[in-house]
């Protein structure tokens, strides 16, 4: 997902009986489906976990602009270029909504940027893969945004008010992203044999990394159990992955593309697909910073930040100068 394997500091999930009165009251509010708002009391671990999760989510939106930005100047038509530009601008907006939500928990924007640039904070593994052809832009919208929607929709109901509200805004816009991707692939699949082959090649390269987005099975994870108790995670990684596969396979069939998994087959009994296991060694390598584009992505973000420093400073100085001029005392 956009936030993968978020740690909670929990050794195990406490029962209501084991909690101090304040924490019990907090947990009971969450169990009753109430929202927690910024200035209200919350356990320190809840605050820290949310900061990790929301900032990681925000970083993913921001870094996610890079693979797609790669194709803005090379989009095949002016219309496609305008659409892609709008899509990438949305990703920037999503990052900003989320950074603001995280800031309500007491971390500053610059601290979060610092954590991204130093490599301390993570972002989704998926954005460390390269976009080699135009069809990759289609595959990202269709698969990557499609996978993101799977867990962002339930997050609209999560327990932390600012995060839930940011998710509502994001989900409204996300469906445009997925459809524009599918539309790119539809056109390619109806085109020349070379174009169709390009679409198939993109699916071959993006399928497994997309399944990895959900993270390894977390049925035995204390962190996932704790996050679910806090209602900042609603479904297990395997449940979401299953849902994603079941939704996506018929769409691939519509496109006339073959999902690159020899083990994929419909299981009538469970009413879903059986499918192969992603290569988790690759996933952990990417998470550890050794994916095909990790270094390039971080360098691009650091460079953008450093190159923009003079401009941010100049606007600050400009604003201060004008504020002084407007004060009558200073003019006298």
């Amino acid at each position: 997902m956009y936030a993968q394997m978020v740690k909670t500091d929990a050794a195990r999930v406490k029962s209501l009986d084991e909690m101090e009165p304040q924490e019990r009251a907090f947990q009971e509010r969450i169990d009753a489906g109430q929202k927690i708002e910024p200035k209200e009391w919350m356990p320190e671990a809840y605050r820290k976990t949310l900061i990790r999760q929301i900032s990681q989510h925000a970083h993913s939106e921001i870094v996610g602009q890079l693979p797609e930005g790669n194709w803005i100047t090379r989009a095949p038509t002016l219309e496609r270029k305008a659409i892609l530009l709008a899509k990438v601008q949305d990703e920037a907006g999503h990052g900003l909504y989320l950074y603001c939500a995280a800031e309500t928990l007491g971390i500053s924007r610059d601290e979060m940027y610092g954590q991204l640039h130093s490599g301390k904070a993570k972002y989704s593994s998926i954005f460390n893969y390269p976009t080699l052809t135009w069809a990759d832009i289609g595959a990202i919208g269709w698969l990557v945004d499609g996978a993101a929607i799977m867990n962002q929709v339930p997050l609209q109901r999560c327990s932390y008010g600012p995060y839930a509200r940011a998710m509502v805004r994001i989900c409204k816009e996300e469906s445009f992203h997925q459809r524009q991707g599918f539309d790119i692939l539809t056109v390619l699949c109806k085109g020349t044999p070379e174009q169709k082959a390009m679409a198939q090649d993109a699916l071959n390269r993006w399928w497994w990394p997309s399944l990895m987005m959900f993270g390894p099975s977390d049925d035995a994870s204390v962190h996932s159990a704790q996050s679910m108790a806090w209602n900042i995670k609603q479904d297990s990684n395997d449940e979401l992955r299953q849902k994603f596969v079941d939704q996506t396979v018929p769409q691939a069939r519509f496109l006339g593309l073959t999902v690159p998994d020899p083990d994929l087959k419909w299981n009538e009994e469970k009413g879903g697909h059986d499918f192969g296991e992603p290569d988790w060694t690759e996933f952990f390598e990417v998470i550890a910073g050794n994916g095909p584009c990790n270094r390039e992505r971080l360098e691009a973000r650091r460079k953008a930040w450093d190159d923009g420093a003079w401009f941010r400073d100049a606007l600050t100085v400009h604003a201060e100068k004008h504020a002084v001029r407007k004060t009558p005392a200073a003019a006298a």
Partner: protein
Amino acid sequence: MTSEWPLWEVFIRGQHGLNHRHVGSLHAPDAKMAIHNARDVYTRRNEGVSIWVVRSSDVVASAPSDKGPLFDPANSKVYRHPTFFDVPDEVGHM
């Protein structure tokens, strides 16, 4: 230098003659840039016809712990709601 830009709260009036509503916040060096940024961040799909921005540090908020003392006095005054009064059927709509 490199100090962080101040935080602004953003309020947008939707298309239909509604009140301005809080939609979120953003960082900007001054009010003018805050409006420009708010347009790009919060109204990319015609969500509004008017934008207010207020420095977050200028917002005065009630404390969550004051919830009881602040709002309890209204609880006992049910007669403020029209449904408190029975209107006889023969009177009809009122």
